């Protein structure tokens, strides 16, 4: 009995450093964010006071926030689907008996390890009007010069393209791991049965990749809501908020407009949205996945 009690104490002692650190910077701030979303932002003249759900009512009347949410939804969909498609393609390429396979794999994966800031610096030059690389090529071919990042219609898609470039290679890794786990007997059997390569992919490989797709999907969705580094370099959310994303708007609200209570409210909204998205994805996919 004594030994058992000691066990409890040991375990808690071992966990306590992690618990204290994580509590201080994850759980307590989450709760504080929730609390501060019910208060007004204090100034020298008007100290912070309880306002109930007033901040939450503001959210629904905030056109910039609405735009950021819509942008973010489009951003998520338009980055995740092509990235996953490309990732599967890359994984299939690299998993085959391709000559120079290591080099190709490295080419696909390299953007992943570069900081988004560095990547943005490089791509910024591509998009610059007139002197930028895309415009140089376009004008040589007889097209008109285009201000890619300064145009409300193109800016978000330009950002999306960069994200796809950066993320596809990252997701490839997970598919590659999954492909290597598929038993070779399946291939042998399908080959002997005379099935086509595409049929094999559609009926065997693809279903077996579903669990990893769920994992990638959850990760990619989280990523599309928390990665805004490139906006700092490329657009600052502009022009006219056409490329604003939720987290960037939270940053602006807190550190440029200095409205920390409203930023807290936006944060709570984002956390809820992420929780709901993760739960829905799990429930939806859990039914359709063929676990081995």
């Amino acid at each position, binding site marked *: 009995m004594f030994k058992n009690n000691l066990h409890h104490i040991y375990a808690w002692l071992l966990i306590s*450093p992690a618990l204290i650190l994580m509590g201080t910077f994850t759980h307590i701030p989450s709760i504080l964010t929730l609390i501060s979303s019910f208060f007004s932002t204090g100034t020298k003249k008007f100290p912070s006071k309880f306002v109930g759900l007033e901040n939450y009512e503001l959210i629904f009347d905030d056109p910039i926030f609405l735009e950021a949410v819509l942008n973010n939804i489009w951003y998520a969909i338009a980055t995740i689907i092509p990235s996953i498609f490309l990732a599967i393609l890359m994984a299939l390429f690299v998993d085959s008996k391709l000559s120079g396979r290591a080099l190709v794999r490295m080419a696909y994966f390299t953007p992943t390890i570069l900081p988004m800031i560095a990547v943005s610096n490089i791509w910024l030059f591509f998009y610059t009007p007139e002197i930028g690389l895309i415009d140089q090529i376009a004008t040589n071919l007889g097209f008109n010069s285009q201000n890619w990042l300064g145009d409300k219609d193109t800016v978000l898609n330009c950002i999306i393209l960069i994200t796809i470039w950066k993320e596809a290679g990252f997701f490839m890794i997970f598919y590659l791991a999954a492909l290597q786990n598929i038993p070779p007997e399946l291939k042998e059997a399908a080959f002997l049965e005379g099935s086509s390569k595409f049929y094999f992919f559609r009926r065997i490989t693809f279903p077996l990749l579903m669990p990893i797709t769920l*994992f990638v999907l959850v990760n990619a969705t989280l990523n599309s809501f928390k990665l805004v580094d490139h906006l700092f370099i490329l657009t600052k959310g502009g022009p006219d908020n056409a490329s604003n994303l939720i987290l960037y708007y939270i940053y602006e609200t807190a550190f440029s407009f200095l409205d920390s209570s409203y930023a807290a409210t936006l944060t709570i909204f984002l956390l809820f949205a992420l929780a709901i998205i993760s739960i829905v994805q799990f429930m939806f996919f859990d039914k359709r996945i063929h676990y081995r």
Partner: protein
Amino acid sequence: MKNYFNSTSIEYFAAWILALVWVSPLLYAFWAAFHTNEYAINFEILAPLTLSNFAEAWVQAPFARYFLNTFLIVSSILIVQFIVCTLAAYAFARYEFFGNKILFAIILLQLMIVPEILIVENYNIMSKLNLVDTVLGVGLPYMASAFGIFLLRQTFKSIPKELEEAARIEGCKLFGILLRVYVPLAKPTYLAYGLVSVSYHWNNFLWPLVITNSVNTRPLTVGLAIFGAPESGVNWSIISAATLLSVSPLLLGFILFQKQFIQSFMFAGIK
């Protein structure tokens, strides 16, 4: 392994084209960095190579200091992560204790509530702790990592209990067992987690941007963002040089240890 479905040459071609497209932005950055600005958009094969852009960038901004800061941030995070996560992972893997399931679930919450999302409140907490604009302040929110605890717990669970018992009979105490049995056997996990952590924090931007405001604490990413800002009016070749400069250690490490990197990311993803 025998390959049953032979790949066609079209596939090889497509694979290589895609690879070329994928590295071309990077190759372009190399081109711009090693040529003077007038050749940045003129692709003449014989254009003279130069290193002056690197020299210029190095002089125009305190990159040496940024390197040091990034190094300090990344290594302090890694060391504390290893210690904190090892202790917690061991407890979760080997002890049946009061509240272990709930506690584990609470810790895993951090996988979703990442520190990036809590920048506003974490900034307030740091200012209460007097840690704004310190290297410690940049690292603290990341030092207890749910991902690390989870990964190590999985690994520790797969280590046979008999080894621990044998070590105990030999007279090892708790920390001895950890250091002599668990840590050596979990080396691949530490390597994988270490690489993922280093590349994550080398590249991290938003939180360091919020919490640092001087040259003495700013990491490379934040320094680079300030350096590359259009207002600063530096030319294209120099920005490319600065960009390559700040990614060079990571890029070099990646090229040299490509296999380990990719295996580590795979390993970390599958668990």
